[in-house]
């Protein structure tokens, strides 16, 4: 058995490994490295300087604010939707799950467009909003709405399969022992789903802070006012301020790295979380 055949076999194996790693490094690894190299290309001084620009700080504040509103909204929705879908049987359940998945399948630009059609100057509520001096499009509420749309499946999609696999037995036991509905949820269900919840929140937050297309449509790109970090990167890049653009990008890249590490640690400890992941965008 061991003989001439074995050598080309081994060679093929190494060739495959080589191709796989080259492709992975060239397409995924190098872009990450280049962000930090470009950001630090003029030294650490100008790196820090461009991060401490008032416009950069304003962009970071807006990104944090947006995530601070959208993540809790979608967290509550995720838990509520997962409770209804995983714990009960009802007609149209699969349609509802498909609807929750919908934002994953839609272009971010279209996600922004739909809110312009409703709240924009020529939109359904446009004239009314102008009359009452309420700003949604080209203002912070529009950014929050668009971000909520694109991040809204993350928590729900993580919790539904998890809660389905856990079944209702523990909750039913708690209820029969006299626990109230809220006690059952907070003392039985919540501890059971906490890791899945954290996993979903992590992905939801990463996307909320990094969303570009949808936010770009509704923001109006007003410096220091409606620029999130991704939009700020685009502006600096179009002005050929590459150090500034990559410095801001490095903040988001670090966020991505922290997210990936936390995700990997969670998966190591709780392998059941790995399921159905390919759906996440």
């Amino acid at each position: 058995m061991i003989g001439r055949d074995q050598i080309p076999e081994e060679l093929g194996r190494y060739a495959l490994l080589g191709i796989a790693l080259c492709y992975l490094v060239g397409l995924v690894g190098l872009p990450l490295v280049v962000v930090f190299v470009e950001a630090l290309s003029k030294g650490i001084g100008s790196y820090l300087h461009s991060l401490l620009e008032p416009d950069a700080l304003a962009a970071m504040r807006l990104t944090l604010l947006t995530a601070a509103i959208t993540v809790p909204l979608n967290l509550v929705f995720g838990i509520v939707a997962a409770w209804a879908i995983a714990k009960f049987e009802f007609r149209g359940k699969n349609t509802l799950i498909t609807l929750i998945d919908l934002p994953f399948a839609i272009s971010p630009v279209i996600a922004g467009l739909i809110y312009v059609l409703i709240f924009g100057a020529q939109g359904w509520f446009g004239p009314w909003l102008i009359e009452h001096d309420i700003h949604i499009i080209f203002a912070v509420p529009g950014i929050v709405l668009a971000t909520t749309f694109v991040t809204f499946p993350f928590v729900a999609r993580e919790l539904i399969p998890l809660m389905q696999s856990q079944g209702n037995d523990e909750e039913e036991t708690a209820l029969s022992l006299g626990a109230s509905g809220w006690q059952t949820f907070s003392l039985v269900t919540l501890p059971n789903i906490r890791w899945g919840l954290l996993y979903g929140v992590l992905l939801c937050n990463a996307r909320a802070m990094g969303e570009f297309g949808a936010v770009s449509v509704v923001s109006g790109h007003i410096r220091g006012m409606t620029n999130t970090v991704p939009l700020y990167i685009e502006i600096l890049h179009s002005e050929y301020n590459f150090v500034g653009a990559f410095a801001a990008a490095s903040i988001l890249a670090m966020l991505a790295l922290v997210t990936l590490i936390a995700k990997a640690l969670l998966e190591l400890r709780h392998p059941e979380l790995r399921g159905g992941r390919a759906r996440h965008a």
Partner: protein
Amino acid sequence: MSQAALAAEAPPSMRRARDRPARDFRILPGFGLTLGYTLVYVSLIVLIPLSAVFLRSAELGPEKFWQVVTTPRVLASLRLSFGASLLATGINAVLGFIIAWTLTRQRFPGQRLFDAMIDLPFALPTAVAGIALTALYAPTGWLGQLLTPLGIKVAYTPLGVVVALAFVSLPFIVRTLQPVLVDLDQEVERAAETLGASSLQTFRWVVLPSIWPALLTGIALGFSRAVGEYGSVIFIAGNIPKVSEIAPLMIMTKLEQFQYSQATAIAVVMLTVSFALMLGINGLQLWSQKRRRYR
């Protein structure tokens, strides 16, 4: 799952008795409240806004709609978005398979790191990916420098669009293939080899038939993401009208010119394709789950 299977096999009278506890006596509280909240939230955030796209484009009327969608510039952008997505996912189908294969079947140093790298396109914001890929593949960039003497221009050409879309769609294909490759019984492959099959024959007749549904699912998921991708593409594409302008950018341009109904017409075309893809993906996933269960 096993309970449902049992219920399906049981005679009708028994089946009803088994189904009933779940349906008729809801022990757990909060069904009405949670379902109601879910429905309201989904309607407010997704359904009503999405219906606005279709209602708005209906204002155009079929003739005007067709006129907008078949303008040479719009048509070129749609062709580029779909063509480049198809090419990118096609390349990833081959290389993504090789990556998934080496990650599941070989042991090598740094394996965990490479495995974690697959998820980077999910986690890295698209604008960051866009400027990084542009810096890499620009004529003066690390990889651009190597490719320019060969006469290959990536940045600011349609090829750049393909590279950006390959980046965003890679994890979908690798992550759908990995679990199937892990489950695949290696005994069968070894049996094929002992019976004298070459590696290629084993791949063609043993491996490929079992991973086919998962591969198609991954391709469809990656394609659906690539078609709508905006952030990573616009930096590297150069956005030359009729050459390297993608459909989402076309929507953006129409919006900036305040031509809302034209923008929605393009959006309707893209949404229709997205919905069709989603139905297809659901079907594919059912199919591949069934096949995995029977093996």
